[in-house]
């Protein structure tokens, strides 16, 4: 350290200034970040959307869709079929769909998949997808487009998708004899919502069950058969990862087409919808290319279908600037909130990680469960004809594509259906938060007394001087080399100690001091061991749900309950045990410098994590940064022997620290959320509802992480939890003030 830094370090101007202003500066940066974020909703700070891809030629072609009649017929027949045969069953009418698609001269296949539920009693679910391929008549099957609709049974609590399926079939009937398709079109009906979609996509891309989960097999160069470190081999009977690797068996597809360029997911429960909600958020906050989103919005306008994106409705255009800003902000904010959990809000979201751009078109009525749209009652209702026209023009535009979507943005926020905020515009707000942390880290760094440093060293030097002066009368040799470093000095003193009696007392004192300095010098190994241990704990917690649910299953507890309470127990245990951990791995007490260094490392780690996550999923990174920056700014090394006020403050800090514990934060936010949804409920009901919601949320995030490769749970346990633990350690361990030495 000493070698790398300037010897006149402490007195350089910027260091002095930094030491003075770092607190208000960090606060300013934090506020600046929030202000920046709010400003993004304003028209001055975001841009009008535009097409980057030339090949799309959106809306140039006349529409010939003439399948309104057949769509109605399919719709009625489908509903009839469901009522007749599937009223009390959740199964999909596979024979009917296969028959209809065969009649349209599509290549029809079914696809079976199996889910071995990884938690609890390991139930097995099966499902079937039906898909028909329309082969492009004048070219080879190298590329494909996908039109999909999820199947929902009559008893489903969600809106049905019968009209979507009927429209899809009618469109297939219309498209089959056309000669201009340059890509195959796959018409796909999936069962079990996202599960069926996931299974179909994995099967389509050849990810079989033996190829491990997605993030282990695609994310790395790992291939089956490579020797890996397996704890199970070392300790038979103990499996850290459980069997969840093979939980979804996607099976095999009997018929394939080419590489999929884009996908459109249809969720229409009735043709008489008022408007279309275009849903874009995908797994882990991934978004489809902005060109596809623009395309859908533009062609909706052209086909005369009303459309919306969250709070932005195509039929409402306010002239008031303030209203515009607020609308823009809330649309953007809604999008951010929806992306945090990384759960796709439709089947389209699973396509994104395969590099396929996809959106969901959801039909909505004036009084929709998803929320009321202003003035939607007065809108003209859509018909199969209009929806068909919209679908046709979207697909013909996609048909013109020559390459995958790559021209426009992949990272953006939408402030309206026609306004966007690019990554270059929103990242500064996240960067400001991280800079606040880094400023704090830098200020800590410059205020750490350097190793073998002036403060303590000066004292020893003075002592030696004194000693030497005393000795001067007796011996000549001692006083000359006082500027040497400690061991040398020690040797000198030792040499002298034989013949000098009066200096005895001072000498022993000096020895003790020297010993203390030796021990208190920073031990990177000790800090590193603690750091590593804490992160290993995080990793273990990440893998704990399977074990917890197995334990719970023995006592017939539902897995969400056992996992939830198991995680609470682990957290409580960690809260008590972790402040002691640093003492276990070392002999001496932890010093102020060491803890400061830990704090610096922690700040750097946290800001890096926020930026790295924010690059992929901005909302998640931003929220983590927003929650943890205040904690990072208030947490500082606690020194023993403080005044009353500061100990009160310390308690407050610890309470804040506890509040942002990932588990606590999730539970609290669920309680607040249920309070917003059901404001009239009494307190305890609200708490219970919040607890249940948190239970569900955690369970979903675990299952999502296992089946779909959602990061949220892994990130929260393996990265955030260790960071939090170290914060907790810093605020719980009291150290000697450096001045006392």
């Amino acid at each position, binding site marked *: 350290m000493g070698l790398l830094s300037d010897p006149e370090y402490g007195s350089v101007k910027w260091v002095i200034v930094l030491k003075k202003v770092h607190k208000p500066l960090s606060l300013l940066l934090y506020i600046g970040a929030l202000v920046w974020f709010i400003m993004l909703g304003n028209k001055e700070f975001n841009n009008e959307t535009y097409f980057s891809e030339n090949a799309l030629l959106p809306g140039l072609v006349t529409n010939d869709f003439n399948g309104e009649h057949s769509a109605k017929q399919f719709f009625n027949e489908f509903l009839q079929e469901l009522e007749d045969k599937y009223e009390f069953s959740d199964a999909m009418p596979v024979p009917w769909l296969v028959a209809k698609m065969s009649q349209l001269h599509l290549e029809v296949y079914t696809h079976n998949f199996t889910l071995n539920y990884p938690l609890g009693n390991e139930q097995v679910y099966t499902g079937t997808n039906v898909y028909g391929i329309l082969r492009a*008549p004048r070219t080879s099957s190298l590329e494909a487009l996908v039109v999909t609709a999820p199947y929902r049974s009559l008893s489903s609590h969600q809106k049905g998708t019968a009209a979507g399926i009927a429209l899809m079939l009618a469109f297939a009937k219309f498209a089959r004899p056309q000669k201009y398709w340059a890509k195959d079109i796959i018409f796909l009906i999936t069962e079990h919502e996202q599960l069926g979609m996931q299974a179909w996509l994995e099967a389509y891309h050849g990810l079989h069950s033996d190829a491990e989960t997605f993030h282990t097999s695609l994310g790395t160069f790992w291939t089956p058969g490579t020797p890996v470190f397996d704890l199970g081999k070392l300790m038979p009977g103990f499996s850290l990862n459980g069997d969840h690797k093979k939980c979804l068996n996607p099976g095999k597809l009997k018929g394939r087409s080419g590489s999929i360029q884009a996908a459109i997911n249809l969720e229409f429960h009735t043709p008489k919808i008022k408007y279309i909600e275009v849903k874009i958020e995908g797994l882990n906050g991934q978004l489809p290319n902005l060109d596809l989103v623009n395309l859908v919005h533009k062609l909706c306008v052209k086909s005369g279908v009303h459309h919306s994106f969250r709070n932005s409705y195509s039929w409402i255009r306010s002239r008031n600037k303030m209203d515009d800003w607020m609308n823009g902000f809330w649309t953007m904010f809604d999008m951010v909130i929806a992306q945090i959990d990384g759960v796709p809000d439709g089947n389209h979201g699973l396509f994104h990680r395969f590099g396929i751009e996809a959106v969901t078109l959801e039909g909505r009525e004036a009084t929709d469960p998803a929320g009321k749209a202003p003035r939607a009652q007065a809108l003209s209702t859509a018909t199969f004809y209009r929806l068909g026209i919209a679908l046709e023009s979207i697909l013909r535009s996609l*048909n013109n594509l020559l390459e995958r979507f790559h021209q426009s943005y992949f990272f953006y926020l939408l402030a309206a259906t026609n306004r966007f905020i690019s990554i270059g515009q929103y990242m500064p707000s996240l960067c400001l938060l991280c800079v606040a942390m880094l400023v704090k880290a830098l200020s800590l760094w410059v205020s750490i007394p350097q190793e073998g440093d002036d403060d303590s060293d000066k004292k020893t030097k003075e002592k030696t001087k004194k000693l030497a002066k005393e000795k001067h009368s007796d011996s000549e040799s001692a006083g000359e080399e006082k500027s040497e470093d400690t061991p040398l000095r020690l040797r000198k003193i030792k040499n002298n100690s034989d013949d000098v009696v009066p200096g005895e007392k001072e000498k022993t004192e000096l020895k003790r001091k020297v010993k203390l300095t030796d021990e208190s010098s920073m031990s990177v190994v000790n800090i590193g061991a603690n750091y590593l241990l804490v992160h290993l704990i995080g990793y273990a917690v990440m893998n704990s749900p399977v074990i917890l649910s197995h334990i719970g299953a023995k006592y017939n507890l539902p897995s969400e309950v056992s996992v939830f309470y198991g995680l609470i127990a682990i957290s409580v245990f960690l809260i008590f045990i972790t402040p002691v951990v640093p003492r276990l791995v070392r002999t001496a007490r932890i010093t102020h410098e060491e803890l400061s260094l830990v704090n610096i490392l922690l700040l750097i780690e946290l800001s890096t994590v926020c930026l790295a996550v924010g690059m992929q999923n901005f909302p998640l990174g931003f929220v983590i940064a927003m929650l943890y920056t205040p904690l990072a700014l208030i947490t500082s090394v606690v020194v023993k022997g403080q005044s009353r006020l500061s100990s009160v403050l310390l308690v407050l800090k610890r309470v804040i620290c506890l509040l942002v514990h990932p588990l606590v934060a999730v539970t609290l936010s669920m309680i607040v959320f249920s309070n917003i949804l059901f404001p009239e409920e009494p307190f305890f009901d609200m708490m219970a509802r919040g607890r249940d919601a948190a239970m569900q949320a955690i369970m979903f995030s675990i299952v999502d992480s296992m089946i779909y490769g959602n990061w949220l749970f892994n990130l929260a346990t393996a990265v955030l939890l260790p960071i939090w633990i170290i914060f907790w350690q810093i605020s719980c361990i009291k150290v000697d003030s450096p001045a006392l030495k």
Partner: protein
Amino acid sequence: MYFSCKLYHVLLTVAGSFSLSYGLEIPKEFQNSNHSNNWAVLVDTSRFWFNYRHVANVLSIYRSVKRLGIPDSQIILMISDDMACNPRNPRPATIFNNAHEQINVYGDDVEVDYRGYEVSVENFVRLLTGRVPPDTPRSKRLLTDEGSNILIYLTGHGGDGFLKFQDSEEITSQELADALEQMWQKRRYNEIFFLIDTCQASSMYEKFYSPNILATASSLVGEDSLSHHVDSAIGVYIIDRYTYYVLEFLENVHPNSKRTMSEFFAVCPKSACISTVGVRRDLFKRDPSKVPITDFFGSVRKVIITTDPIDILEIPKRKRKAENKTKVIEKREYLPQFPMHLVQSTV
């Protein structure tokens, strides 16, 4: 050759003696082109379905020059993509240049000389300069001479100082100017009419420095060349503005018409084209208002009917060389594979 030159010389002296009596203006005979054949090089440099209009452009010009009399053997047609057979084309095997779809410009007798990826900068420059590989078929060679008038038409996507070929390379205006200079030095042309329809098209002819080139472009530097209209049945922009108006003009031109090049320059006023048509005439010696358009777009040979008897000089008879009747067959042998003579000389 000798004969025709001589004939010409006689005619010119006669004409010259006529004009002397009218004072010192440029003799009318000099205003006339003295080209003996016409060629056309028509190039579409861009591929992909959304560039359908460029193929329609070039095929429309092809159709016009063919109608005006340049035979297929003297037209080099370069088209970088096959729009007619594109699977996206709802009218397979046809290309139209108008939303009314009356004329299929990809009709019965279209001879494409360079197609697909053969349309490259290298091939284009080799074609112009004549530096083609020896096994190149005649249809892919520009077999011009010092009496050739060449029409060069380029369309595609351009920028300031370059024209993009395919999606991978581009020719710069300097390269093009140097190629034309090489043509001049090799006596490969008499006059060139350079016509280009791209964005910032005029930047392509600014670097020209060889004589006898007349150039016009659809837009000036800094301007975009725009498309004319959409054929919504096919779903593409079907033709570019400049070429559309050029065609409108050319449709009324026939081999005997007296339209001049300066009329041609005025076909697309800014109100119609949106871009400004650029013209460069400083390299061209004749007055464009007196140059008939058929000098470049047609293949109208100058025929002069003379009633006067022509005094043909007696051509001296060739002397018969005394031939060596006894043929000694030369003895042929292979050279040694290793150049031994070199080695021996050094030893």
